[in-house]
């Protein structure tokens, strides 16, 4: 029987999973756009401007989806998790408030200038607007990750009559897991955007685009990914060590360690079974987990049986392996790509196809990673302060079932439309002649949209 709690959890997971897809692209994509704009201002080569024009439209689409799916989140706290605000509202409220005040307005307003203002403001102001939007998206990530990290590793507060009160805001914001989580997420966004850019650029080339712009953006994406992937592996390791220190039960679930042991193996594959409290079909590297987590051969890793409560093991265990697996794949693909680039020749078609296949690889890794960290926090909503089950709304399950069904249907439609639209945009760019985009083109103006009465494809020569 599905009750309000499980339905609300599914709804929150669905909403936030769908939402995170878009910020995980836009946070870094805006810096990439800023880079294109800077390159254009510096070299005066119009190819950078063409790259900017194409990607700013893709950015706007992602941004719009991020905004509208984000608004849903701000209502969820009240509609589905009233206990959350009643218990930790004194902490969560101001952090969310700062996100709105310092980031949302900044992004939204300057995005207007970025998109529509190219002929209305001086070029420097336009470049500046791009920078401001990039800073805004990062600030947004800063505040929301400060809050999320505080829920994982609370600090700087005290409990009075069952309600959390802040005593040191710097400790609240810079709580133990925040610096690691924030860096990890920014790098994740960088990798997601890099593969997104590389994937769509490769798609354009495969579809017969002879222009320079997609080649340039493919290179940008691959080089960025090749640089960020190893850094992410390093930061991810640090983040893991931080979790090992503050949330050892999460690590135990990630590694499916049941009994506390010295020299714990690093499991490559296993089927954890919570009933028998053991793993089946385990394949592992001896001492691997101890080596990674304690940096000693025989370090002690606390097992799940040592904890009174621990998160469900399977999703955390598999989620972690999926994230790391995709990360390694990204590293391999990006470095192969850079190898081709260094040989100064066009990557072979098979490689371009692989890159197209990797377009949304960042999404897989980001979602898997977030599931690890959020399911790994259970049964707590805010570690040691509030349990998820105690925060849920008194609203009847039928209501939640109704809203959840609506959201899921809408998300299915939106995701289909989103991917379809990306394809349409890419194909349109393939068919557009170079000289058309050299000048601000009429086909791209919002008041001169392709009209359905005339022909089938706007922007086509």
């Amino acid at each position, binding site marked *: 029987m599905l009750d309000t709690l499980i339905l609300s959890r599914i709804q929150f997971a669905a909403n936030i999973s769908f939402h995170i897809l878009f910020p995980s692209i836009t946070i870094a994509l805006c810096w990439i756009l800023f880079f294109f704009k800077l390159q254009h201002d510096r070299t005066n080569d119009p190819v950078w401007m063409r790259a900017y024009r194409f990607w700013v439209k893709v950015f706007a689409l992602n941004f719009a989806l991020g905004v*509208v799916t984000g608004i849903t989140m701000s*209502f969820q706290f009240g509609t589905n998790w*009233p206990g959350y605000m009643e218990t930790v509202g004194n902490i969560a409220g101001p952090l969310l408030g700062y996100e709105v005040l310092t980031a949302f307005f900044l992004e939204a307003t300057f995005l207007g200038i970025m*998109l529509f203002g190219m002929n209305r403001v001086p070029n420097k102001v336009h470049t500046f607007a791009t920078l401001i939007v990039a800073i805004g998206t990062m600030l947004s990530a800063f505040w929301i990750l400060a809050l999320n990290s505080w829920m994982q590793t609370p600090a700087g507060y005290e409990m009075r009559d069952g309600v959390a009160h802040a005593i040191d*805001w710097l400790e609240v914001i810079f709580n133990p897991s925040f610096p690691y989580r924030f860096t990890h997420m920014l790098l994740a966004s960088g990798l997601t955007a890099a593969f997104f850019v590389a994937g769509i650029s490769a798609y354009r080339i495969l579809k017969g685009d002879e222009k320079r712009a997609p080649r340039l953006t493919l290179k940008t994406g691959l080089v960025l990914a090749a640089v960020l992937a190893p850094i992410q592996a390093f930061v991810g390791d640090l983040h893991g060590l931080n979790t090992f220190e503050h949330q050892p039960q999460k690590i135990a679930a990630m590694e499916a360690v049941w009994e506390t042991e010295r020299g714990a193996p690093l499991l490559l594959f296993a089927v954890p079974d919570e009933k028998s409290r053991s793993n089946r079909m385990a394949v592992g590297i001896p001492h691997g987990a101890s080596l990674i987590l304690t940096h000693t051969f025989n370090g002690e890793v606390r097992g799940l049986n040592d904890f009174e409560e621990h998160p469900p093991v399977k999703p955390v265990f598999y989620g972690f392996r999926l994230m790391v697996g995709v990360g390694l794949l990204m590293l391999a693909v990006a470095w192969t790509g850079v190898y081709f680039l260094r040989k100064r020749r066009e990557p072979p078609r098979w490689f371009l196809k692989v890159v197209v296949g990797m377009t949304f690889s960042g999404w897989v890794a980001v979602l898997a990673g977030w599931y690890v960290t959020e399911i790994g926090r259970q049964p707590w909503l805010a570690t040691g302060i509030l349990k998820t089950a105690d925060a849920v709304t008194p609203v009847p399950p039928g209501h939640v079932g109704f809203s959840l069904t609506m*959201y899921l249907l809408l998300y299915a439609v939106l995701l289909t439309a989103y991917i379809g639209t990306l394809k349409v945009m890419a194909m349109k760019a393939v068919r557009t002649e170079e000289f058309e985009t050299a000048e601000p083109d009429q086909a791209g103006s*919002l008041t001169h949209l392709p009209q359905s009465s005339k022909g089938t494809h706007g922007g086509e020569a």
Partner: protein
Amino acid sequence: MSESAMTFADWLPVIFIGLMGLAILIYAMLDGYDLGVGILLPMGEEDEAQRDTMIASIGPFWDANETWLVLAVGLLLIAFPSAHSMVLTHLYIPAAIMLIGLILRGVSFDFRAKAAVAHKLAWDRAFKIGSLLTTLTQGYMLGQYVMGFDPGWQPQLFSCLSALGVTAAYSYIGANWLVMKTESKLQRRAVNWAKLAGRSTFLGVVAVSLVNPLVNPGVFSRWFTFPLVMFVLLIPVICFAAFVLNDRLLARLPKERDRHCRVPFFVTVLIFLLCFTGLAFSFFPYIVPGKLTIWEAASAPESLMFILIGAVIVVPLILAYTAYSYIVFSGKATDLEYH
């Protein structure tokens, strides 16, 4: 020392309800006009060019406009968490439908310009329906809020009336926005919409103003207490005058050289301000009418202080760059280009 600190702690909820009121008011005006433009979207095949211009007129603004709603809900959540929970659990279904509406219109805006041409009309429909869902549910929620979430049939009826009233009001400000931002055929069309929407809004405001004091005895005694009555009745009087003035002016628009094309929009802004003041005056200091005052619902002073410092620095900045963006995109919408 400690006494003055006490007083300040008592003032904090008042400051925050003021900030929240400001956010709601700015939201109603700004997102009001872009929702209104969405509602008014003509769906005929021959209207496509007009639809493009209408949507272009709100292009650079809608996103920031919507952010005021996030700020208002955010402030409710930050400053009055228990009211936030009480209001939103009562309004679970309408809030969910409103969010669907907001999502639909937000994405349609982008998809219509970028998806395959064959789908453009479908996204325009989604934009219109999304806008309509948003305004109807907002009006319904306002009605429910005023009625203290009473589930009886009369409050339900009142909430439906309020849904129509708010939709009319948004169409009114939206139409006047178009009168200001467009020209020739579309502008003449917008003038007609504005006249119709203005009269409907007027009826809605009158109906709500009559029903509200009749069903809420507290509201009645607040408005009709001598000698305050002499002063506060200025609100409906000015409001009435503004409606009449606008109606007369619209009958003569567009004028030569497009004179006075901005006036109806700003008169509508004044009407919004007056209606909002009237509502606020009716219920202050209750945050949930008849149930919860702002002091009962307020969160801890140290949290309010922390966010207040930020708000004092940042809100003027937000207002400044918002004004800048309106200056950059001033003039008729037909010139707006999207690169």
